[in-house]
């Protein structure tokens, strides 16, 4: 029999009993739909986390001072005054594959400008900070090396600060007073939004590190050194070189622990993506189980169908159908069932994913591979679970089949 003829006969026998066919493929529909929906939700969540982490900069390495123990009380990380500007300069000079280094020191203060004031955090840093933190300028310029060298009282406003201090005018060229020190506003940062951890990254004022240390907090140690590696691949080597360099500079013996801590955003990123991958694999695994259950449903109904149609099989054999013809007829029917189920499942899965996006407000991302994979798996389920009933049909004895009532 031709392929077209086989398909036609198989289709006829499916539409002959539409309700039963639908029930038969329900398992496949749910399985395929679940794979696609769960992968879409998983991929959406992963994309959201990645996007947030990407805003931090994927090559970012953070060096913070270590903790100290006083009288048995261990203070938190960053309590030590172990990082100096010279450390940052040494990293810049001696560690290979470093693109930018931004030493940073901060304080909190009430900023006043005109008739407005706003409580915000003040960041003292060097020109590299703009690249390390991947900000862009909305207007004006960022602080320069000249500002840093001269300890100039220049300031760059974050978007939130600019909005609150200068609701209706351009802040560039105006003055902002922080801790009684007037700073000339030279630029405004473009808005970056919330960080992955919910902090408003636009609520800050950036000043030269020298100005910060001289005029605002009076400290000569750093809160943090931000390092940007040349490439994500170089991050690991930069981390280890930095650790070695700082241990050397701080004169630590091999038995002493680090008095600083080097953290790597890529690690956080990897952990986050590994978590969401595990989650979506788990979901896909559950969905695969339901596909297999769906396949058993198909096998069950195909066995019933073979029994019901024993006489038909006998007639076909009597008029010359070979074993292969009967085998193919029932196999095509099972595969058609599972493919129709797969197609409906794809539609249902995509629909459910978008419904979830609308209803729960989650980001979803249809993964094309999940559509192909689950549909292919459904078709394979049809072949695997259709084979036994089809083989049973093809092995019937024509005489007994004809006599079957």
């Amino acid at each position, binding site marked *: 029999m031709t392929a077209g*003829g086989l398909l036609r006969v198989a289709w006829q026998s499916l539409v*002959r009993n539409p309700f039963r066919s639908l029930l038969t493929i329900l398992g496949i529909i749910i399985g395929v739909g679940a794979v696609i929906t769960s992968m879409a939700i998983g991929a959406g969540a992963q994309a959201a986390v990645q996007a947030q982490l990407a805003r931090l900069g994927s090559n970012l390495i953070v060096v913070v001072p270590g903790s100290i123990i006083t009288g048995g009380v261990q203070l938190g990380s960053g309590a030590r005054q172990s990082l100096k500007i010279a450390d940052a300069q040494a990293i810049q000079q001696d560690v290979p594959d470093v693109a930018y280094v931004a030493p940073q020191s901060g304080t909190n203060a009430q900023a006043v400008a005109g008739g407005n004031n706003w409580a915000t955090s003040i960041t003292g840093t060097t020109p590299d900070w703009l690249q390390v933190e991947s900000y862009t300028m909305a207007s004006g310029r960022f602080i320069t090396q000249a500002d840093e060298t001269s300890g100039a009282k220049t300031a760059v406003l974050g978007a939130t600060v600019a909005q609150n201090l200068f609701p209706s005018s351009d802040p560039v060229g105006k003055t902002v007073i922080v801790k009684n020190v007037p700073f000339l506003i030279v630029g405004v940062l473009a808005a970056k939004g919330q960080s992955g951890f919910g902090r408003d990254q636009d609520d800050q004022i950036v000043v030269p590190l020298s100005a910060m240390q001289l005029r605002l907090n009076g400290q000569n140690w750093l809160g943090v050194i931000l390092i940007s590696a040349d490439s994500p691949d170089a991050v690991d080597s930069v981390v280890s070189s930095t650790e070695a360099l700082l241990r050397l500079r701080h004169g630590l013996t091999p038995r002493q622990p680090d008095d600083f801590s080097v953290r790597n955003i890529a690690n956080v990123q990897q952990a986050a993506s590994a978590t969401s991958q595990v989650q979506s694999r788990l979901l896909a695994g559950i969905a695969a189980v339901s596909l297999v259950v769906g396949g058993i449903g198909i096998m069950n109904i195909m066995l019933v169908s073979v029994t019901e149609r024993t006489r038909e099989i006998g*007639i*076909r054999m*009597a008029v*010359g159908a070979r074993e292969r*013809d009967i085998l193919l007829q029932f196999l095509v029917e099972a595969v058609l069932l599972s493919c129709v189920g797969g197609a409906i499942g794809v539609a249902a899965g995509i629909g459910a994913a978008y419904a979830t996006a609308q209803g729960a407000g989650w980001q979803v991302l249809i993964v094309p591979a999940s559509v192909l994979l689950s549909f292919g798996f459904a078709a394979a389920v049809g072949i695997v679970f259709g084979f036994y009933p089809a083989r049973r049909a093809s092995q019937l004895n024509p005489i007994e089949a004809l006599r079957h009532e």
Partner: protein
Amino acid sequence: MSAVIDTRKLRKVYRVGAEDVVALDGVSVRVRSGESVAVMGPSGSGKSTFMNLIGCLDQPTSGAYFLEGQDVSHLHGDKLAEVRSRKIGFVFQGFNLLSRSSAAENVELPLTYSGVPHEERRERAASALKAVGLGHRMNHLPSELSGGQQQRVAIARALVNDPAVILADEPTGNLDSHSSEEIMRLFLRLNDERGMTIVIVTHEHDIANWTARIVTFLDGHVVDDRPSAQVAAARGSA
């Protein structure tokens, strides 16, 4: 004339539980091309087993069977299916039509398994249905046809592959006497006009007497093989 069916010491033993049941015990029958033969005998006489064997639905335990000179007694599975598809046309007591397929589709069925292209299938099915007088019922489902008409569709299906022999197993068993007569007339017409070889299993003498020759089975043996009363009468009157 050459033999269409030639069985030599055909023997068939079934195993029922622990016992061997001899259904056929050394049956040698020759049917020449163009003959019409009735196979008679009580139930259990072996006539159904004989039909299954010459219809290539089953294999003999021993003995030989030549169909149009080809030894088919050792064939099995797909080879046997191929022989059925090319050389045998079956007509059954219960018609055995596919209930959801139209008359034309039922008649086309054997052709789909012998690889005949679509257009040719339709033409041949149409001409077979015309030959049995159902040219106007091609698209009817079996349930929309009378018993006699259904059996004529089955005969058209048996004819459509131009087989060497038509084997009919109690073809009038489910029909009233009027329809039975119609069906027998159709068989004889096909036998007369086309020289179609026909073997009919029946337990009714009236039906058997429509044919030219009656072979009687009992306990797995052929106990009688002679021209029918109709032929005898014709000879007597001649």
